[in-house]
C-alpha cells in the first residue's frame, strides 16, 4: 500500500489515455473512476509485482512525455514481454470493471 500514491501518479494517466482510445464513447468521469479502480487493484498486488509495475509505469510515463500521446498508444499495442503484460493488465482490470458494473455498456464504451 505504501506504493499506492506513486502508482496512482504513474498509472492513472496512462490508463485514462488507453481507455479514451479503446473506448471513445466512455464518459470522462467513468474513465477516471475505472482508472482509479485499476490503480487500487494494482496497489494490492504482490510486492515484487508492484515493484515491476512501478518500474514499467515510470518508463512508460517518461516515454509518453518525450514522444507524446500517439506514440504511447502505439506502445500500448506492442506485445513485448513485460511491457505488453503491463498494458494487458490495465485493460483486463478496466474492462472487467466496466462490464461488471455497467453490463449494457456498448463496445465503444458509451452507455446505453
Amino acid at each position, binding site marked *: 500500500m505504501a506504493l499506492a500514491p506513486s502508482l496512482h501518479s504513474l498509472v492513472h494517466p496512462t490508463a485514462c489515455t488507453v481507455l479514451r482510445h479503446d473506448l471513445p464513447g466512455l464518459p470522462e468521469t467513468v474513465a477516471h473512476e475505472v482508472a482509479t479502480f485499476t490503480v487500487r487493484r494494482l496497489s494490492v*498486488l504482490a510486492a515484487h509485482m508492484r515493484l515491476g509495475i512501478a518500474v514499467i509505469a515510470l518508463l512508460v510515463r517518461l516515454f509518453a512525455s518525450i514522444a507524446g500521446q500517439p506514440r504511447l498508444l502505439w506502445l500500448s499495442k506492442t506485445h513485448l514481454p513485460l511491457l505488453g503484460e503491463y498494458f494487458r493488465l490495465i485493460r483486463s482490470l478496466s474492462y472487467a470493471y466496466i462490464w461488471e458494473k455497467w453490463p*449494457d455498456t456498448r463496445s465503444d464504451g458509451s452507455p446505453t
Partner: protein
Amino acid sequence: MNSVRQIWDDANESKMSCEVLIIGSGAGGSPTAALLAEAGFDVLVVEEGRWVEQGTVVPFSLDQMEQQYRGGGVTVALGLPSIAYTEGRCAGGGTEVNSGLYRRPPTEVVERWRDRWGVSDLDPDELMKTANEVETDIHVTHLPGPASVPSQLLRQGADALGWKHDESPRWMTYPDGNPRHGQRQSMTRTYLPRAAKAGARILTQCRVNTINISHAKATSADVSLANGQAGTISFKFVFVCGGAIQTPAILQRSGLRKNIGQTLAIHPTVKLSARFADAINVPDDVPVHQVKEFAPDLSFGGSASHAGLIALSLLDQWSDFKGAIEDWRNMAVYYAAITSEGRGRVMSVPGLVDPVVTYRLTARDRELLRSGLSRLSLLMLEAGATEVYPSFRGAPIIRGRKDLALAQKRFSVNKASVMTVHLCSTVPFGENRQLCGAGSYGLVHETKNVYVNDASLLPDAPGVNPQASVMAIAVRNARHFIAQENPHA
C-alpha cells in the same frame, strides 16, 4: 457464525499458546482442526484473511476477488507465458470461492503417488472410504433438477461428437429443491464450526511470518495482526495448511528448503467465449458438466460468465471481437484444461512479503493446449454456437469447421491467456527423500513436529479438481497423527 470465532483483538494478548497450531483454514486446515479438536487437542487455527459470510458478496465478482482472494485475484506465475492463478485468502480458503465441483482422485493416480513417491500405507480403497466420509460431511450431491443452459450446451456438444461427459457433483445443499438455489457447504459451513464446537479457537487476519525451529523442533510462530502488531504463538505441534503457494513460502522463511517449493504442479487452462442465437448466460454460477473424452490429459468445462468476464475473454483480440460484448447475454465462457508435465517453483525471497512463483510449460503441454482449444471450439460449434471467440492474440472468429484449421495455425500459447485454479505438489509427501519434502503422513523431513496437510502434499497434479484428494488425505493424516499423539493416552 460469528459466535464461533475468536479474533486476536478480543483475546487482547500479544502472546498465545496452544497444543496444536494450524496455519490456514482451507480444505486441508479445516478438517485437520475439526478432527484434532474432537480428539481432545487444544487447537488454534490462524487464518491470514477475513471471515466473509456467504451471501455477503456476489460469487465470481470483482468484489469477491477483493475480499476473498490474495492480491485481489491478480496473482501470476512468471514464465513464457506467465500464468495467472488464484488463491483464496479468507476463512475457509479456496473452498469459499471455487466452483464447488467435486472429483475423487482416480485410483491409478493414488497408486502412482504410492509407488513413485513411496507413500507408505496409501491404499486407494482406504482413501476412497475416507472420501466417502468427507462427502457426507460436506454434502456432496448432484443437482436436484436440470443443469443450467450453458452446462447443457456442453453436454449437447459432447453428445453430438460422441465424446464422454458427465455431471460433476458439488458440495452443495439445495434447501428448496431448486438447482439454482444451492448453498455452498464450504469450510465456514462445515468443518470450521465443527472445530469451534469442539473447542478450537479460530483467529482471522493473522499472518504467520516464520516458524521458529531449533534442533529440528519448532516451538513458536511469529505472526502479524491486522492492526500491525506483532505476536508470538507457542505450540507443541504445528500443521502448515496455507495452500500450495503459501505453505512452501512459510517453510522456506523458517529455514526449511529441501524439496520444498521446487515442484509446483498445476492444471493450465485456455479459454474461449461461445455465442449462441438465444440468451443462455448465467452470471453467477458455473456449468456442472465436464467433457472427459481425452482425460486425464485434457478436459473441458465451463467458467463463470458474467459480462465482465465475457469482456475479459474477448480482450486478446478486442479489435475484432469487441462487437460481441453487446450480445453477452447470448454468450458463455468455456475452458480446456490439461494435466501438465511442466513444473514450477515457489521462492521466498528475503525482504519480499510474497513469494515469487514461476512455471514452465513443456512442449507437450503447449501442443495439448493448442489441440485442446481447437477441440473445444469444435465442441461449441456442435453445441450450436454461431460464433466462437478463442482467447488468444490474433485469433479468428470461428463460425464453422472450416475456420478451425486457421485458428489452430494462428494459436501460440505465448499469445494466449493461460490461467489455473488448481495448484499443488510443492511439498510432495512420501518416503523417497530424493523427491519428497515430507513423510508419508505430512511430517516435514528433518523436523520433529512440523506437519504439512494441504494441496502441497499431492505429489503431482491429479488430472481432476484436487479438493477431494486434499480433503481425503488431510483426514487420513490427521487420524494418523491422533493415533500417534493421542492426548488421552
